[in-house]
């Protein structure tokens, strides 16, 4: 008898008595080593958070470290550059969030209206491509396009918007938007996949009924397509809100420079700068820990907010 086919009247735990541990041991051998690996590489490093409460010196052992309480957190929150870094982080992830969502939803709606399958497939295939490129490549492309002898300056000059070429990567105020549009360029096609899947699951009868009632295509988009993909949008929004402190790291590291640093440094850059370049591991860890804690709080609150609103939940 298969071990777990539940016949009515049979108590649920009985098969364990009849077929003890043979399968279980195999399963344990398959799963426990991997779970131990996960524990070692994900949970064990949490021990390192103690560094944030020490005056950490790598040369000392744990028992001889100097404990300083919340001193590094106090330093962090009173540091002027930390305020600026928080502003940059929130601004960049806010811009990424809004531009990312709007562009992907609009593009998904337009692609969904495409009836010419060849064009639709071609456009999709091409638009997914940048997702697979590294930020090294994307930064190289961005820098080439925005160079003072580059194409972007030329277009603006031809249109008469600017008189002489600008060094865009040296303009502090442009940096947030460069990051935002680079993100859109890289991810917009990829982000449409999930919306297109949600749209294809909508019952065609809804559209037929709407057509009977004389709805035009914009009314159908507004009253059928968008409400139907609302659960998908909400789930993705909740995930994104949980990651609002993650404004990205690679592009800021690669395109940041002395001229734009007041606007380009995000919290991850702060952590790397203090840890890697200045050797202040305690302050770097305090910064990283602050970020992780805020992330978890945001994720949980977004989740319970979604539950209250009657939307789909993540956890």
């Amino acid at each position, binding site marked *: 008898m298969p071990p777990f086919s539940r016949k009515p009247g049979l108590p649920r735990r009985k098969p364990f008595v009849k077929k003890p541990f043979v399968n279980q041991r195999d399963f344990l051998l398959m799963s426990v080593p991997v779970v131990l690996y996960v524990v070692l590489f994900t949970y064990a490093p949490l021990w390192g958070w103690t560094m944030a409460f020490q005056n950490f010196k790598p040369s000392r052992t744990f028992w001889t470290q100097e404990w300083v309480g919340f001193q590094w957190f106090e330093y962090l929150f009173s540091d002027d550059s930390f305020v600026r870094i928080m502003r940059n982080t929130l601004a960049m992830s806010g811009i990424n969030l809004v531009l990312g969502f709007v562009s992907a939803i609009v593009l998904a709606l337009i692609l969904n209206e495409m009836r010419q399958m060849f064009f639709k497939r071609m456009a999709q295939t091409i638009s997914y491509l940048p997702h697979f490129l590294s930020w090294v490549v994307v930064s190289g492309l961005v820098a080439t396009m925005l160079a003072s002898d580059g194409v972007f300056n030329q277009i603006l000059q031809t249109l008469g918007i600017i008189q002489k070429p600008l060094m865009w990567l040296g303009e502090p105020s442009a940096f947030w938007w460069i990051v935002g549009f680079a993100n859109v360029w890289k991810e917009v096609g990829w982000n449409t996949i999930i919306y297109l899947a949600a749209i294809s699951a909508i019952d065609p009868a809804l559209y037929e009924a709407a057509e009977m009632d004389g709805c035009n295509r914009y009314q159908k988009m507004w009253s059928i397509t968008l409400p139907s993909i609302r659960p998908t949008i909400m789930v993705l929004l909740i995930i994104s809100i*949980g990651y609002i402190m993650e404004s990205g790291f690679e592009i800021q590291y690669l395109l940041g420079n002395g001229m734009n640093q007041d606007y380009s440094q995000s919290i991850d850059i702060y952590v790397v700068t203090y840890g890697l370049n200045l050797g202040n591991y305690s302050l770097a860890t305090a910064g990283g820990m602050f970020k992780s804690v805020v992330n978890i709080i945001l994720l949980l609150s977004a989740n319970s907010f979604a539950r209250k609103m009657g939307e789909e939940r993540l956890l």
Partner: protein
Amino acid sequence: MIHSRFTLENILFTSFKFVVVMGLVLITLYPFWNTVVISFNAAGDTIRGGVTVWPREWTMTNYKAVWVTANIPQAFFVSVSRTVITTILNLAVTSMLAYALSRKEFRFRRPLTLIVVLSMYVNAGLFPNYFLIRGLGLMNTFWVYVVPTMFAGFNFIIMRTFMRTIPESVIESARMDGAREFFIYRTIIFPLCKPVLATVALFVAVGAWNSWFDTVLYASRNPDLFTLQYQLMSMLQSSMNQSRSAADVGSSGMAANINASMVTPQSIRAATTVIAAVPILLVYPFLQKYFVVGLNVGSIKE
């Protein structure tokens, strides 16, 4: 369609769609094209501006300069090795765990799954991880590219979701014939999971191929371990720093004197970017049929 197809409104809307979609295609592809063009154009000529769709003065100097500065063949070898080994290990480890934790008859399924799923939301941060790697003696060894990235919770969820769709009866009949779980996993489950394995392989391979910051953190003392992306990243960084001084030179009117055999940061950067992008561009057409399937499987998660 109830309405006539050839109303003014329909024609306008159709043209609008085509403009948007063709615009998208153009905006996606043009930066590549422009960068390729600049990488083949003589550096001294590029400074004058206006190099847009075709090189004005063909040259290979830029590529030669990149080739001489960075050890590209070695970096390519390191990148390929780390990508292949990481991908194989990920597939083995993830599918094995996913099989065990997708079976309802496994007693400890729930607590173990909870540990794995929660791990996706836990991140101790850069330096706690750094000291773990150091403590394990992985610094400046090849294995630092492989060991820390052998498993990812997201891939696990994709695989587990897929495995749940395999009919229970297949597994049970094998068990009745006396097959043990390892045997079932290897001979029945693994072959059935080909589509999802391909998807996960794609995600893992692209991630491994594209990463460069682990070299900055863990292997920057060992030039033999520099990956392609790392080499290109450091060239990119130095070209960025130089290009500002080059721009100053340009504005003071000295650009005209730069001779044709010379390279500029701008041209080096273009050649570097092309070298970094080409491997992905070459394999992309073969891979793209897999990821849509896999992503849709993954989106039904939990």
